[in-house]
């Protein structure tokens, strides 16, 4: 199974560090690392750090951070409710939480495209608001972020629910016995205990979101909301320069590894605290 992973990743490197065929301007991959040519990669790196691609990376980071924040705001209360308070509704709510997994992501976005089209019900509703009379499907960052939240919040809620579910109810009872109000019990007991799970849920949601390109294409299709994923697919499928796409993928993976590494380090640190 490692084969499924190692070989493709290596090819990405081979293409990114290879030569360029002058006719098709397409990649001639260099499989032998002794001959890897880093000029193409450094060119792209330059564009990312200093040039126009920097905007795309920053914009993607911004959208992801805001969308994950949106997921927390929407998802945490729901997960909390289902795990602790729901009572007899719990089974039914669980089914409803799981349901979006079984609906194609594309179909859920299709639904919103229909609703936000100029004659769509949502667009008509929004047009009554001030500033609401605009084409929501053309170059509106808010639409893209909304789409990301809508699309990924189910993937956020379920792991969070699992964490909250595991918090021992007796701890809360104990807090209550010691005189804490519901709210204090939440802030001082539940929230800290759920922090690990919350971070995990955020990471699980953010990582795939970074590679998302279809949400933007479906809901916006404008350079104003271009994300890293869009650029990668653009270079792979719409130009004859896949090596730029390959370089971007390597850079993206590196950035994600850094984030993952940071997360793992903090997990380790927390575990050490617990086991001391």
């Amino acid at each position, binding site marked *: 199974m490692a084969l499924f992973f190692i070989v493709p990743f290596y090819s990405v490197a081979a293409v990114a560090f290879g030569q360029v065929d002058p006719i098709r301007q397409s990649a001639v991959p260099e499989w032998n690392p002794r001959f890897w040519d880093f000029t193409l990669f450094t060119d792209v790196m330059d564009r990312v750090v200093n040039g126009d691609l920097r905007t795309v990376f920053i914009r993607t980071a911004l959208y992801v951070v805001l969308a994950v924040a949106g997921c927390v705001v929407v998802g945490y209360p729901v997960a909390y409710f289902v795990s602790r308070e729901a009572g007899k509704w719990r089974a039914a709510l669980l089914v409803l939480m799981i349901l979006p997994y079984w609906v194609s992501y594309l179909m859920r976005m299709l639904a919103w495209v229909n609703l936000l089209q100029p004659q769509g019900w949502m667009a008509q509703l929004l047009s009554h608001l001030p500033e609401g009379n605009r084409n929501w499907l053309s170059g509106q960052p808010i639409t893209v972020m909304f789409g990301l939240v809508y699309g990924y*919040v189910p993937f956020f809620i379920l792991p969070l629910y699992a964490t909250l579910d595991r918090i021992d109810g007796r701890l809360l009872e104990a807090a209550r016995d010691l005189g804490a109000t519901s709210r204090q019990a939440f802030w001082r007991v539940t929230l800290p205990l759920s922090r690990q799970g919350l971070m995990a849920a955020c990471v699980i949601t953010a990582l795939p979101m970074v590679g998302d390109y279809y949400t933007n294409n479906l809901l916006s299709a404008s350079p104003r909301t271009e994300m890293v994923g869009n650029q990668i697919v653009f270079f792979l499928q719409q130009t004859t320069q896949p090596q730029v796409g390959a370089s971007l993928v390597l850079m993206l993976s590196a950035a994600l590894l850094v984030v993952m590494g940071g997360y793992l380090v903090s997990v380790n640190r927390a575990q050490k605290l617990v086991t001391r």
Partner: protein
Amino acid sequence: MKRKPKLLATFTALYVLWSMLPVAIAVLFSFNSGRSRSTWQGFSLRWYWGDPFSSVWHDDSLLRALRNSLVLAALTILAATPLGVGLALGLTRWRGKPARVANGILLLPLVTPELVVGTALFLVVTNSYTFLDLGRPAQLVGHVTFSLSYVVIVVRGRLLSIGPDLEEAARDLGASPFQAVRMVIVPLLTPAIFASAVLVFATSIDDFVASSLLSSGAGSETVPVKIYGSVRGGATPALNALATIMLGVSMLALVAVFAIMRVMRRRQGDANAGENSLKELASW
């Protein structure tokens, strides 16, 4: 007693509505009698089979997408399930470092953005003149890569809860390791195998990124790819109809498996068959 958390309850109810309603509306519009996907013009089944040019039944490209999705999903199940079960069985026997490493590798596909894996596979296939071609073969490889993880996780969860006792007992009674596995473990695993097969099915038919990057044109377009390509254009509600059909198929598969699992568990003496099956499906 705690007072009833009305605020949270309302919030959750609103969330459920927000989550489900758009999809329900999309399903509704698949029954629209006019060409619009946003203005209701009456009820009709024309987009399913009535319309002689554009309905799902008559439009070759939509039918082809449906067929491609189902065939690809079936092939993925056939490939990933045995492999995954084998992997799961093997993993529970390893101890120490190799096991932890394998565990880690297993989780990789679940947290890597699909774009990264899809791109990598695309570059392998287009640059190394292997026997692998873009199109269904490449899509299959992509889907199996992701699905393996799901299968292993679900099956392994069940294996852990079965525990080694039964197998040891069988061995004590004289069975060879292979017989022990085949006659004792595998039958107990059947619900989990079914659950993971359904999981693979759902993941495969809903998959977009890998299917899109690795496709070879109309011959290997799946339903999500077709929807993506047609959504911003002047597609008719036939698109909604196609999506609804896929939704229906997913739901049917889910219900069918749930029912089968419940029956199996009842036969194995599980008292709380329904809820346990539900938990198993949600366990990953």
